[in-house]
Every structure is written in structure tokens, then in C-alpha cells.
């Protein structure tokens, strides 16, 4: 077992987080097989609307008579794929920019970091909302908006790491033996800068699920009949307080999933860099 995993296995909260993440992952992958009513992703059953939780419908039914338990299970895939798409897109934009800015220096670096600062100053939720609205609300525009606002975090981290590493002795040595910039950056600096990126990505996954849920809730993200958790909560508001179960369970699903990613991320961070304690 690698030392990182061994350390992780001793951190109880992090293991809990890992367990949750794996659990959600399994649900996301095998959701249609696990859900008692997989067709309820899109079907509607007008005769059994808004039933309270029972043995047949553990989480009750929604406004179109669909099994909320099934839809919560089916929603995991959407939530995870949004998060993964957003975070990987943000990484694809942010990491190279950070590498360039950190390794090159000069006006290019200055320029990149200024833009990064500006984008960081834009309130993410508001920009995402505005973009989602203006490009007509859909999952795609929500994901694009979130990616466009999340990359600076990666740029910052990679920039700092690259700056630190490129002034370090071993990079000097590499330069001395005539290694090319590309080689140095991709074979030596990038792998070393990766662990904080992974930590940030883990926490970013949870965070993105949360913001995506907000967008879904405000009608700017997933569109019906997608079994989106945020959307379900939005739909449920009309039926409160009668159908309390309608809002409660999708919200718990968000809470548990995001908690899983955060616990895991915190644990990873403590291992990678016990000194830094940052959130988000």
C-alpha cells in the first residue's frame, strides 16, 4: 500500500469521505440497475402523485407520481458528471495557464495572473447565473459557466507551485544539463505540482455539485424531467408543507455527496500539505 493510502486509511473522517464518494460513484454507474423504478427518470404516473414515503416508495412520490427514491439514485450520475466535466475543463484551462505563467515569467505571466485575479473577483454564482440565463438555461451552459469561473483556482495553485519548483535546485540542475523547457515543465514540474491540484479538484468536485444544484434550483441548470437534485427541490416548493418528503430527500443526497468529497479532500490535503488549511 502506498504511504498516502496508508495515511489516509488512518484518518477516519477521510475514510468516511472516501466511502461516501465510492458509494455515490457506484450509484452513479449502476443507478438504472439499482433504482426500483428506473423508468421514472422520464415517465409520469398521474394516478399516484405526491404520495408520502411508504414501503413501495421509500422517499415518497413527486408531482408527477414518480418515485423520489429512484430519482435520487438516478440523479447521482448527473451530479457527478457535471462535477467531473466542470472540474476537468477547469483543470484543462487552469493548469496549463498556471504552468506557463509560473515558468515563463515576464509580461505573459503578469498578464495571465491579472486576468486570473479579475475572473476570481467575479462572483461565481452570479456569473454562472447570468451566463446560464443568457445562453438559454440548460445543463451545458451551466457547466460552461461553472468551468469558466473555476479555472483560476487551478491557475493560482499551479502558478505558485511552478514558481517554487522552477527556482528550486533540481530544476536548476536540469537546466544545467540542458533539458528543454517542455521536458522540465511536463516531466518534472507538473508531477510535483499535481498533489495540490488533486486536492483542489476533490474539493472542487463537491463544490461544483453544490453550485450546480443551486443553478438547477434557480431553473438555470438541469432541465426537466432530468432527475436533478436541485431541480427537484425547486419543484417541491409548490407542494410544501404538505409534501415535505419531496424537498427533504434530494437535499440530503446533495448534503451527503458534497460532504463525502469535502471529507476526502480535507484528508488528502492534510496528507499532501498539513500546513495549509484552506476551504473550498
Amino acid at each position, binding site marked *: 500500500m502506498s504511504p498516502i493510502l496508508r495515511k489516509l486509511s488512518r484518518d477516519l473522517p477521510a475514510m468516511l469521505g472516501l466511502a461516501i464518494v465510492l458509494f455515490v460513484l457506484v450509484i452513479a454507474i449502476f443507478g438504472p440497475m439499482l433504482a426500483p423504478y428506473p423508468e421514472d427518470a*422520464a*415517465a*409520469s404516473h*398521474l*394516478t399516484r*402523485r*405526491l404520495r408520502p414515503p411508504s414501503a413501495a416508495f421509500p422517499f415518497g412520490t413527486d*408531482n*408527477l407520481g414518480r418515485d423520489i427514491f429512484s430519482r435520487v439514485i438516478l440523479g447521482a450520475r448527473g451530479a457527478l458528471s457535471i462535477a467531473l466535466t466542470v472540474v476537468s475543463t477547469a483543470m484543462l484551462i487552469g493548469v496549463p495557464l498556471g504552468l506557463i505563467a509560473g515558468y515563463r515569467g515576464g509580461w505573459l505571466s503578469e498578464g495571465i495572473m491579472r486576468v486570473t485575479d479579475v475572473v476570481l473577483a467575479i462572483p461565481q454564482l452570479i456569473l454562472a447565473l447570468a451566463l446560464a*440565463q*443568457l445562453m*438559454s*438555461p*440548460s445543463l451545458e451552459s451551466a457547466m460552461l459557466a461553472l468551468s469558466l469561473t473555476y479555472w483560476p483556482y487551478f491557475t493560482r495553485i499551479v502558478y505558485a507551485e511552478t514558481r517554487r519548483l522552477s527556482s528550486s535546485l533540481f530544476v536548476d540542475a536540469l537546466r544545467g544539463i540542458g533539458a528543454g523547457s517542455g521536458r522540465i515543465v511536463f516531466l518534472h514540474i507538473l508531477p510535483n505540482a499535481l498533489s495540490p491540484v488533486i486536492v483542489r479538484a476533490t474539493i472542487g468536485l463537491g463544490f461544483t455539485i453544490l453550485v450546480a444544484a443551486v443553478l438547477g434550483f434557480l*431553473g*438555470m441548470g438541469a*432541465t*426537466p*424531467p432530468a432527475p436533478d437534485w436541485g431541480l427537484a427541490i425547486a*419543484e417541491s*416548493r*409548490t*407542494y*410544501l*408543507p*404538505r409534501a415535505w418528503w419531496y424537498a427533504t430527500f434530494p437535499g440530503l443526497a446533495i448534503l451527503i455527496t458534497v460532504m463525502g468529497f469535502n471529507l476526502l479532500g480535507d484528508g488528502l490535503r492534510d496528507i499532501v500539505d498539513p500546513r495549509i488549511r484552506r476551504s473550498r
Partner: protein
Amino acid sequence: MTARKKSHGPLLGRRQAATLAAGALVAGTLRSVQAADASTFVSGFALPMNLDPHQVYDVPMQSMMLNAYDNLYRYQNDPPQIVPWLAESHTVSDDGLLWEFKLRPGIKFHDGSPMTAEDVVYSFRRVLALGLAPAGAFLKILKPDNVTAPDPRTVRFKLETSYAPFFAAIPSISIVNPRLIEPNVKNGDWGKAWLASNGAGSGSYRIVSAGYRPLEYLDMEINEDHFLGWSHNPKPVKKIAYRPTKETSTRVLALLNGSLDCTDPNLPADQVEQINASKIAYVQKDVVMRTFVIRMNNTKPPFNNLNARLCFAHAFNYMGFIKDILGGYATRDPYPMPDNLWGIPKDVKGYDYDLKKAKEYYAKAVAEGAPMKRPLELHVQSENEQSVQGAQLFQADLAQIGINLKVVGNIWSNLTTAAAKPDTTPDMWVHWVSTYFVDPENWVGQMYDSQFHGTWKASSYYKNDQVDALLRKARAAVKQEERAPLYEEAIRKIMADSPDIWIYNSMQLQGLNKRVKGRRFCTVGQGAEIRWITLDS
């Protein structure tokens, strides 16, 4: 309670008193709200985007301006009749071009100045100059200079072409007070900025400027000097407090705890049972003229194919939707117009939910080369639960016959923008057509005459030369007896072409506090006219 207080000595220990005080702070307002001011009507109607009736004309504006402004004629009663209001009568020339309205004597604006025909002329010219929403019906047929005041009590309109709906649209124009507006004009804006948050009318209630915050709240107080007087209602509402609430459940709870006298008139059917079970409120049901339609973009395949359109028309579970989701609070309306309006060809049946037939049409359409497998988009207004539910229902049924429909949430301003061009208009979208004026023109006229292509009402881009001719003829004729058969004929043809999916005519559901008495309903304005209402104590 008071009696007990007297009979016992020190009634409460200090601790009890403190507990009570804390409890009062926590639970207090719930009670205090119920004992609402006996002369203040707290309205849950939505507020218009701003207060200028010449800039905005939609359902919330109607509910506001019916109270703050007056019109030459006004719709009253159910079914709606157009009745003299500021005008006591009118005449029209035989060619339908010259209209004269005679004002009542002694009408006063809220500032006390008398209303003259010149003020009416000013109001219409302002509408035309601004060219915003309410001008739509008039811009093509009325030049500003052709609105004149031959004498202080007569207003004359000279139309460019004969246009029957002109009279039907007269109640949409509010008469404003130029003496208040003119001092607030900036850069020739006709006082647009000022009137957006102030009032300059003569209506039964006067806008309290300090009591207005856009889309949040609006206060009005009674105009004791209204020209109609208050003899018909000895105990009128003294103040109206508009307190719109965005969330249905919030609205309903506010109604149930007594802090709202009426909800907005578009309550979801799911709430009826709960409200009717309460002691304090009930749900008022009224048949209105507000049709619900799924548009198809007739320029995009497969919707350019008649069999394809017929397939879709048979795949919607009309009665399931109306019964189960709307709780039966709507009437199936197979026509492109409210079925309670004149000009309906009652012998035409329309289409029913029949998946077998839908499949047959599907096969025919495929045989004719229509791309029925193409993934289609149905755009809904995300914030409107009912449109979302209808779309999801449709989607589930279409999936059964092998049609791949994607429901896309969208918002009104984007949809109307998209509808301006055939290629940006969604494959399908959902909307209602409310009563802007009570005339077939409001529905079939503007929805299926190809000259309106580019507006959201005509967003199916339906074009049938015969229909165009019939609708234009009907528009130009003046007498309803002449016009009705023309509309009936046009509707027959339109329905045969099945350009859209017409679903229902609304029944409006409005939660009302039981203390609200004397409400008069009219589909125009949806019963928002407060002057008839008395609050029981």
C-alpha cells in the same frame, strides 16, 4: 380573558410574564396579522414591471391599472361586456374609420384637475409615441395627429384602415394626467422614467409613491372623488397593499394565516383542497379566457408535415393533464381560441388523445419522409410549474411512440427573442394566451395571420393564404355578425392544418380570504378591480 384578569390578583409571576413576552415575540405576528386592518386589502396579485400603463401591458398591469387608472370603456362582468366608463357613449362611421367618444362631465384626476378630451388625446399620443406594449393594436391604424379633441368632451379617432378590434382594445389604454407628467419629462421621454414609479390617473385608488418598490410592494389609497362615486359600495376598501409573493407555497401560507386577502389568480390545483379545508379562506373558481397551447415551429421538419403535426396532436393526454394535474380546473378547449368566445365553429370536434392514431400518423409522416426520429426540443418557462409538468407528460407519451423529445427550461424574455425568427424559434414551446382584449383578433387573428410572423404570438410560422384572407377580411369588418362566420371559417381551416396543439381554456383559481365580499369578476383583469369589494369584519 379580560374578566379573568380582573378577578385574580397578580395574574402572572415575573417569570411567567417573561415567558409570555418571549412567546409573544415568537408567535406574536401570526396572530396580529390575522387581526388585519379592517379597511386594508392585502393583495397577492403580481406587480407589473413598472407602473406606467403605457409602457407595460400584461396581466399584472391590468390588475394594477384597473384600480389606479380609468379607461374610456372598460370590460365588466362575466362573460365580459365592454361598457362605457369615462366615456358615456361613442359613435362609429359606417366605414369603420371615424370613431367619436363622448366623455362624462365632471371627471377629476387625483390632483383635483378636471379631465378633458385633450387629456385623452395626450394619453393616446403618448402611447403611440412610446410605441411600447399597449401600442401594438394601434400603431398600424392610428396616426398621432388623427387623435383630436373637437371639444372638451369629445375625442375623435380617424383610423387609417377599418379595424374592428380597435374598439375591443380601447379598454387597454389608461388615461393619464398630462399636468403631472409634463413637469417630469426628461429629454423628451414623455415622462417615462417618472411615471414608471408614480401615478397620474383618475382611478378608484391613488398610488402612494413612497409605498412603491418595483416588484416588491405597492400601496394605494382610496380616491373618494372618483367619478363613479362610492354609493354602490358603502364600505369600500380604504387601502390596497400589494404584497406579491414569488413562491406558491408561501403565498398559500400567507393566505391561510390571514396575512393575504387574495392570492394571485393562477393558483395550482394542488392547493385547492388545502385552502378550502381552512376556516379563513377559500378558492374562487372562474372561467376565464386564457388558452394553453403547445406551439410547433411549422417551418422546421418534421413540423412542416401535416401528418407529423397530427401525430403530435393525438399524442397529448389532454384529459389526463386536465383531470390529474389541473385537478379538473380547466376546460378542454380544442380550438385555437377560448371556447367561450364568439367565432367558434362549434361543430368541429378537434383532436383527442389517441396513441394508436398518433402511431398511424407517425407512420404516414415517416412514409412522406418526415424526420420523426430527429431529437426535438420543447421549451418551457422554467418558473412555471404547470408548463413544466405538461411538457413532461407529453414527453413521456411521445417516448412511447418513439419520438425523442427533450424538455428545455427557458425564460420568457429569451423565448420571445428566439421567436422573432423561424430558425431561432424552438421546435416546440409552451405558453398561454391571455385576454389583452376580448376579440378573436387577440387569438386567431394575431396567431395565424402570416403578417404577424416575428412576434411570439405567431411563432408557429403558420402560413395559409386562404386563412390570411379570411382573417384580414374579418378584421376590417365592423359588425360582429359579419365577422363571426369569417372567423369560424378561418378556424376550420386552421384546425384542419393542425399547426399547434391547443389544450385547454383556463379556469382561474384564486385563493380569497372569507372576509372579502362583493368581488366582481371579469376575465379582463381577472377580478382585480378592488372598488367593488367590502371587507367583512
